[in-house]
């Protein structure tokens, strides 16, 4: 947009291929709103068309070149100036010249590497997007279009269970068990809590899912914990020998995959907290 009214301006529209066949996914933006974009996976080709339309029919626009970029970047909220781009590809759409009327340019980024999953968190954001730039003398016209990338994983069916015995000496001994140590996003946590020794009065017990987002490195490491869910599994005082079942459906919560040290910039981990509240 030229603010000074200098010369005619154009509208840029990015249309990706396979709009009807490709699946879409939702992701939260920084302000918490939900946005829907097309879903891509690692290695898939990103192709489409860029439509440039003149605002005022019949006018001409001079430019120094039109290019399109495919960018994958990590933004740390506390360090806005520096966007760390881990993927950056450029294609030239048009050489310096003139635009009249409506023009359409096709583009294709073949087998683009998308190593990480799109993520919007409390302190960090990882996103992939296409950026069209019309280079002009005074100011550039820019249009961005986001896409969402999911990573897929394969894990064996045989997944060892977590079983531990914990307690407070002479007051409370419990044994807890969860059926798996690796869960997928639509999985169910099945387990039980067995009371071996109860000498205190318990009011209730709940299971909490906590997300821990770690940003920064070394001395600047910052952990942010967020309780995603709290699920009461028992109400009242148990006695020795009681077994409390657990069945928690993960598909009801907004979870993301566990991310370990993404590009050495951030990590996202999930924890299961067993909370017992006494009198």
């Amino acid at each position: 947009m030229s603010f000074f009214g200098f010369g005619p301006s154009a509208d840029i529209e990015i249309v990706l291929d396979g709009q009807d066949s490709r699946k879409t996914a939702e992701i939260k933006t920084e302000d918490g709103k939900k946005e829907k974009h097309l879903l891509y996976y690692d290695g898939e080709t990103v192709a489409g068309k860029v439509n440039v339309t003149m605002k005022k029919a019949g006018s001409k626009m001079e430019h120094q070149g039109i290019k399109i970029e495919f960018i994958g970047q990590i933004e740390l909220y506390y360090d806005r100036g520096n966007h760390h781009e881990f993927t950056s590809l450029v294609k030239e759409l048009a050489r310096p010249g003139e635009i009249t009327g409506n023009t359409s340019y096709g583009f294709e980024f073949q087998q683009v590497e998308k190593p990480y999953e799109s993520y919007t968190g409390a302190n960090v954001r990882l996103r992939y997007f296409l950026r069209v730039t019309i280079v002009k003398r005074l100011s550039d016209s820019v249009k961005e279009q986001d896409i969402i990338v999911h990573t897929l994983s394969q894990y064996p069916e045989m997944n060892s269970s977590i079983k531990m015995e914990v307690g407070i000496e002479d007051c409370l001994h419990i044994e807890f068990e969860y059926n798996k140590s690796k869960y997928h996003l639509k999985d169910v946590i099945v387990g039980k809590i067995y009371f071996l020794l109860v000498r205190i009065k318990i009011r209730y017990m709940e299971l909490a899912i906590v997300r821990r987002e770690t940003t920064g490195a070394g001395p600047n490491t910052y952990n942010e914990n967020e309780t995603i869910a709290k699920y009461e599994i028992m109400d009242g005082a148990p006695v020795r020998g009681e077994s409390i079942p657990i069945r928690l459906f993960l598909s009801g919560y907004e979870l993301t995959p566990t991310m370990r040290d993404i590009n050495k910039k951030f990590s996202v981990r999930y924890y299961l907290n067993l909370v017992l509240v006494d009198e």
Partner: protein
Amino acid sequence: MADSEESSPPSSPDIQDGDPGKPREVTITKSETGFGFNVRGQVSEGGVLKSINGVLYAPLQHVSAVLEGGAAQRAGIRKGDRILEVNHVNVEGATHKQVVDLIKSGGDSLVLTVISVPEQVAERLEPSDDSSGPSYIDYSERRSLPISIPDYQTVEQGGEKFVVFNIYMAGRHLCSRRYREFDGLHSRLKREFPDFNFPKMPGKKLFTLSEQQLDARRRGLEQYLEKVCAVRVIGECDYMQEFLAAPEVDQENNHTSSEVELKVLLPDRSLCVVKINRNDTADEVFKAVVSRLNLSEAAAHCFYLFETVEYNFDRKLQGSEFPHNIYIQNYSTATSTCITLRRPSTFLFWEAIDGVNKGQIKTEDKLYELKALQESNKNIEYLKVARQLEGYGEVVFPHCACDSRKDGHVIAEIGFECFKLHACKNDGTPESQIIEFQWKDVKSYDVEEEGMSFCFEYARAGKKSRNVQILTPYYVYMKECFDRVFEEKEQEYAKLPEAKKQLKNLVFLNIATKNKRDVQMSEQKLKA
């Protein structure tokens, strides 16, 4: 990182057949040099899918080396080839061991389905280990370990005297290491994890360290160990495991058990350090403290070792307990020790001050007078005033449940004059009701191990006897206090003139020992 033009990567000149990026089947027959290739890849199972030439695959094992002129090279296998199938079994996401086992299972013949990848793709999938290896270590995964270094001791080995620091994990002794060994560990860890920000180690000193310096070094080493072991990768690495492992051999030592130092808090707030054996009983430790302080026999009889359980409650140790264990378990940097030397049930000057400060002794309007005496260190006068006050010479237990009270707790107070049960709320806030039991009314008492409680039987004059059960975790100590009271009452009785003795005869006669006795009270005899 911008490519101006994207074209399909140049294919390796050797591969002639079909599309270079597509999977192809290769059959290899064993020669004198075996199959002639190496396999390398992930040790774990499963993982994130990555794209190879536009198609997503689970992590694949790959060919890391091909023998020049060997069977694999002649068959068309190239370095960097990703293995999709082994003998027609899909190995996507397989562990290294699974793939190797499958290769071995075919005997002399082997059929592989592989995908060749160009240099850059291979680099992306399997980063070279020398430079970028260590930086892929996830230092963010942490766990907290109950590791501590509560004490140290001087040992003599091979004619050399040096200090070793005892490392404990959750109250259990792991090993003892000297500063030199810590330093060695630190250098080794720094080389193994060059990009980790290690905490500072306490400094080297050329001269022998004073007690203060040694304690500072102990604290520094403890903090270093805590921080370093908290990072899972470092805590579980070989060097660390080796360092923390209990040194083998010397079964002899285990029996005699090494010397440790124990700090005991004295009534005058000073610390007494005694050298004891790790599994010395409380009786043995007490003897060591007595000899260290040069207490006379008579004086020693009035004291014993206590464990500071709560702010204003000390529990007397049983003769068979292990003070060092308790010392280690209650280890905290806030207090120097949880073991104190005290006089059970009667106070000396410092303890009296303590009692006043903690509110155990109810001072009311005497507080000003007491403070003045305290300032001028007039011990005897202070004690005279304190003795008159309520609460002096009393042991107050933390609030607990009682069977005669359905809703709420009680605070038990054992004093020389009587035994009181002070009603209170479940959280300990005192209520108005106080029940007093005169010692002469208490017929019998005992502890109940199963229910973890203390019970006593009392009978007021002319009434039926009743049982009361107090559910306190300190039931053993409570019984001891009762024992002590009755013992002192007996001593007091012994000092009485003959006539009074006759009267109190029947009351005290049978309450003389520490064992449970049924007391038969003959009311007629008393009235006589």
